[in-house]
Every structure is written in C-alpha cells, then in structure tokens.
C-alpha cells in the first residue's frame, strides 16, 4: 500500500485513543509509575505520558512475554493429557495497540520477526505480532544515549510502525504506513484530515557520530582482542541491558509442575548470565564477563546482520541508561570504530 498522510489535532488524538478504548481496544502506552515511565495498559488517554523520551523498558513483552506457556499437561494415572498453549495466547482475539511508542521501539518488531520466522515459524510470536498495531510518535529531541541514526534509523523513522505521528505545534501529522494502520483509523476517520505528502513535515538531517559498518569490520577480525576483557571488567552480568533491550530475544525453556500436572514454559533469558552457556561438564565457553559482553556485541553488530541483513540494535540506548555500572554502549561501539581505524 502506498503511504497516506493525515493531520490530527491534539484534542482529536485524545478522542481517537479514548474511542478506541471504548471500542474494546487494549491500548498500551507509556505510563508513569514509581517516578519512572513504563509501557502499560491505559484506561484513558490521560493515563499516558507522551512527553517522556523513552519508557524505561521497551514493549518487547507484548511480542515475547516474560513467561509464555507452550503447553500444559496433566496426568491421570499413567495417561497424559496435553493442552496446546497457542489456544490461550492473550490478544489473539483482541485488538491491541501500542500507542505513543518511539520509532526505535517500533523498528524492533520487524527485526524480531525475522528470527522468529527463520526456518521454524514461531506461532506464538506471529500470533501476537499479527494482532498488534503500532502507533508511534517521532522524537523531537533524542538524548545523549540515543544512537538510532547511527543504527540506520532516525528519531523520525516510520520503520516498523503502522502509523507514525509527528508533533508540529499543537497538532500531529500522521503517516499511515500500511493497511494495518489504515484499518485502525478507518472507524475514526472523522478525526483525521488527509493531507498531501508534501504537507507532511520532512525528516531533519540527523548527525551520526560513528559508522556502524566500521564497528562491524573490527568485530569481523578481532574476536580475541584484549579490549573485551579489559573494558568489561566493570560488567557485573546483571542482564539489565538484555532485558530492557527491545531486540534481545533469547529465551529459556523450562518445565514446571508437580506429580499431577504441569506446563512447559519459555522465559526471558540473557546471554549475560554465566549459566547461559555453562555446560554440564562445568566447562563454560564464555567463561568471563568479557566473553559474554563480546557475545552481545557480536550478536548485535555482526552475526545477526550477516544472517538477516539488519543489525540487532535500534540505538535506543536503554542498555546504557539502565546499566548500574554505567557501561555506555554508544561509547563502546564508538571505541570499536576507533579501534578499527587504529
């Protein structure tokens, strides 16, 4: 579908969201909680905080829940009864909208989609992704941790969004990227005013401070470089970077239950945990935190891009903001590019 352009006043945007809620949409938006902002289900437009640059966590959990039941089982004597978890994927028959997310978060969706459809098609992910409509708002002022421009995106990118809003004064310009976006506003078209493409505010020229390809070229050749061991002595392996990351998608499969019944679940996991690669023998191929952080860099900036032609990073900077030891990935990637030139 060709992109369509609209305009909507701030007041009508509120009406738009409140109407969707009335119409039984589940709206996930940035909300204030405990002095910070997180994505959460809002009960009305005013619950949302659209002024914040980025919620503390991404909305990854709406694509890949923290815990997901793959199937449940129960015994009666020696007979086993199994119930497929796909039946109860929440949001399956319900329209869910991520509203007010940022372009970086939106860009994460299509990146994740690739890995969950690489060979094996993951019904759980696909079912959720299919039922999710993403309405993003472009950033006006990224902060020092942001590097989406370096990651081939921009604070105004519509990549991954179904509908992208840009604030201009007291109104919003909107670009409908695809049918899903169009479908969403179809019932509320009275609130939107269609405009021509050239009336839509053009993207600014966002400056980059490094070339990501250069970092990759370093990673290509320097697996054993001392940089990794020295630089990440300060990493405590907490995994916050991976858990707050919109694109990190590793999970662990576990069985939980007792002698009568149980379920197989998959939980978020993190390559930053020592146990992640620990072998039964006691050997650990990624034995140091340096090895493990290198793995994260390798996966994001080399391995994934070689396989899927996309970097596994949208430059949101959450891993840096949230790191208790202030490891700043933007600095790290910049280091890599400098090491490549050295």
């Amino acid at each position, binding site marked *: 579908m060709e992109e369509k352009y609209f305009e909507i006043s701030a007041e009508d945007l509120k009406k738009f969201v409140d109407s969707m809620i009335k119409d039984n949409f589940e709206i996930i938006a940035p909300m204030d909680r405990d002095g910070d902002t997180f994505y959460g289900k809002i009960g009305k437009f005013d619950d949302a905080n659209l002024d914040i640059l980025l919620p503390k966590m991404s909305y990854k959990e709406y694509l890949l829940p923290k815990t997901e039941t793959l199937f449940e089982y129960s015994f009666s004597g020696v007979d086993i009864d199994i119930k497929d978890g796909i039946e109860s994927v929440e949001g399956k028959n319900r329209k869910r909208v991520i509203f007010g997310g940022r372009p970086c978060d939106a860009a994460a969706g299509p990146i994740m989609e690739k890995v969950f459809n690489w060979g094996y098609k993951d019904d759980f992910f696909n079912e959720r992704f299919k039922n999710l409509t993403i309405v993003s708002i472009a950033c006006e002022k990224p902060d020092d941790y942001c590097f989406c421009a370096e990651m081939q995106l921009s604070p105004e990118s519509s990549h991954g969004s179904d509908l992208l809003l840009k604030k201009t004064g007291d109104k919003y310009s909107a670009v409908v990227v695809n049918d899903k976006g169009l479908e969403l506003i179809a019932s509320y078209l009275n609130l939107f005013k269609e405009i021509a493409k050239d009336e839509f505010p053009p993207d600014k020229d966002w400056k980059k401070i490094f070339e990501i390809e250069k970092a990759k070229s370093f990673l290509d050749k320097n697996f054993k470089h001392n940089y990794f061991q020295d630089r990440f002595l300060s990493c405590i392996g907490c995994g916050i970077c991976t*858990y707050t990351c919109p694109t990190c998608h590793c999970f662990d499969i576990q069985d939980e239950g007792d002698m009568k019944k149980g379920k197989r679940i998959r*939980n*978020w996991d993190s390559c930053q945990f020592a146990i992640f690669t620990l072998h039964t023998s006691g050997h650990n191929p990624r034995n140091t935190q340096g090895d493990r952080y290198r793995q994260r860099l390798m996966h994001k900036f080399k391995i994934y891009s070689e396989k899927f032609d996309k970097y596994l990073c949208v430059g949101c900077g959450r891993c840096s903001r949230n790191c208790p030891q202030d490891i700043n990935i933007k600095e790290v990637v910049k280091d890599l590019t400098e090491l490549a030139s050295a």
Partner: protein
Amino acid sequence: MANIDEKLQKIARDLLESKEVSLIIGYTGGSHPQRMRPVFITKPEDVGRLSFNRHSVQDLAVFLKKQEVKKFGRIGIVVKGCDEKALNVLMQEYQVSRENIKIIGVECNGVIRQDLADKGETDLSENTVYDKCLMCGEHTPILHDYLIECADPQISMSGDIKPFAKIEELDSMSSEEKDVFWEKEFDKCIKCYACRQACPLCYCSRCIVEKNVPQWIDTNFGKIGNAQWNLIRAYHLAGRCIGCGECERACPVNIPLMLINGKMARSIHDLFGYKSGLDVDAKPVFGVFSESDFNDFIK
C-alpha cells in the same frame, strides 16, 4: 574535590609502583557529569583517571566476587563507609582475605540518588541522597589502610524526612494490605536478577534459583515465581545485608528492595542484637545461636 582526586591518585600510584597491588578498583567520570562509573587501573600511568565525588554511588566491593577480578591477586579498592561493611562480611565469610586487599577508605557524607542525578541534580541535601545516607553510622570506613577525608559538608536534617518510613507504614498494615502492596511490586519483576548481580554479598557461583533438582524457585515470571525469588533473595541476605542499596538502585523496574532488606536488618537487630558488617571478627548471626533466643512464636 581536586584535592581528593589527587590524594586518591597518589595512593594508587604508590600502591601500583611498589607492586603492593596489581589492580586498583575506583571511580572515574561516567556518561555525564552527574554519573560516575567503576574503573580498573593496573598501570601507574593511568591513575589520573581516578576520581571520587558525591555521585560515586556504586559499591565497588561487588567486583571482588568476580573471578576475572580475583585473578589479580592483591587488589586496592576505593570504598565508602557503607561499601566497606560489605568487605567485612566478605571477610567474615572467607570470600576475601585481609592481606590481599588494600582498603582506600573515603569519608562520605552521602551520595546523590542516581535517578535525580540523571535529571541533573548536583545538590547534596536530605532530599537528594539515599535513605541509607540519612541513617549512615559509618561515614568513615570501619577498616581502612588509607583514609581520605570528606569534601562534602554533613547533611543537615530538618527532621521532616524519616528514612525508611515505609517500613513502619507496612508494619502497621493488615496482611491483606501488605499482600496487595507486594503483589503489585513483585508483579513488576522481570527476573533479570540484577539485584543479585549488583549485590556484593550474593557471591554464590550457582545461585539457588539456578538449581533445578529440585527446582527451589519457580522459573516463571508469574506471581508465585516472582514472590519466591524476592523472598529467597531477602532471606539469604538477612543478617548479612549491609544496606548499600545496590540491589534497589540496579532494579530496572524500581521494586523497593531496601524496604525488605531494611525490615530484615531491623528484625535481626531486634531479635539477636546483631548488625552486619560492623565487626569483621564477629560470628555471623546464622552461624551461631543462643539457648535463650526468641522462642515466643513456637508452641
């Protein structure tokens, strides 16, 4: 401030040059002026990076549990009073030996809460520091080989702010109310275990949550799994936690972990008269008993 940094750097240079230590763990400037980050210095010529100020929030003792750090053998470490208590517990529990460690103590009158600092806060006052700073009894590290005096004035207390007042508030609630409170808090948990990793005293090489025969703690992120994790974390730190608050600072979803830790510390003190981290020669509270221990709850 420069004075402190110079002293720090001189001590570090001397220690490294004389080969008394092969690594200095200290602070250096971070992502922005209100953030500090850990730094690892191995060469005398790098000591210029060392610095300390009211944003030095991390408890660097956490690094002593890392195998990669232990390999350095003799280590110099910059500690505030609260952080040093962690060293004492690590020594009590045979994780660190005194002769392998040079303690560079820094007097401290409080550090600014990181969430405020990230928003630009630079003032040191009762409104900007952590609760632990308001209750601090160890502005000067208990054990130290070197001591650097404090650059900041003592915080004046208006009396309006009562640290950890929430503990008393919770204590006065009914169990239903408490349950509602904690269910909401634990629901946020994403089980990243950052609280564990950030804790200088969570040094097990295989945490109990990673033990699966039997599965002590549910792996799921649901109500019971999250509650179990938060419960066992607090239980395993009861009588050991020295209140550095690193778990709560690390928590990406802002669970008030220090409420639980603080409650446990109070209970331990009330019941057994013990405060952890104050005496490196003391026997840990769960390593001993008294015949006259509290028995009223047992029929």
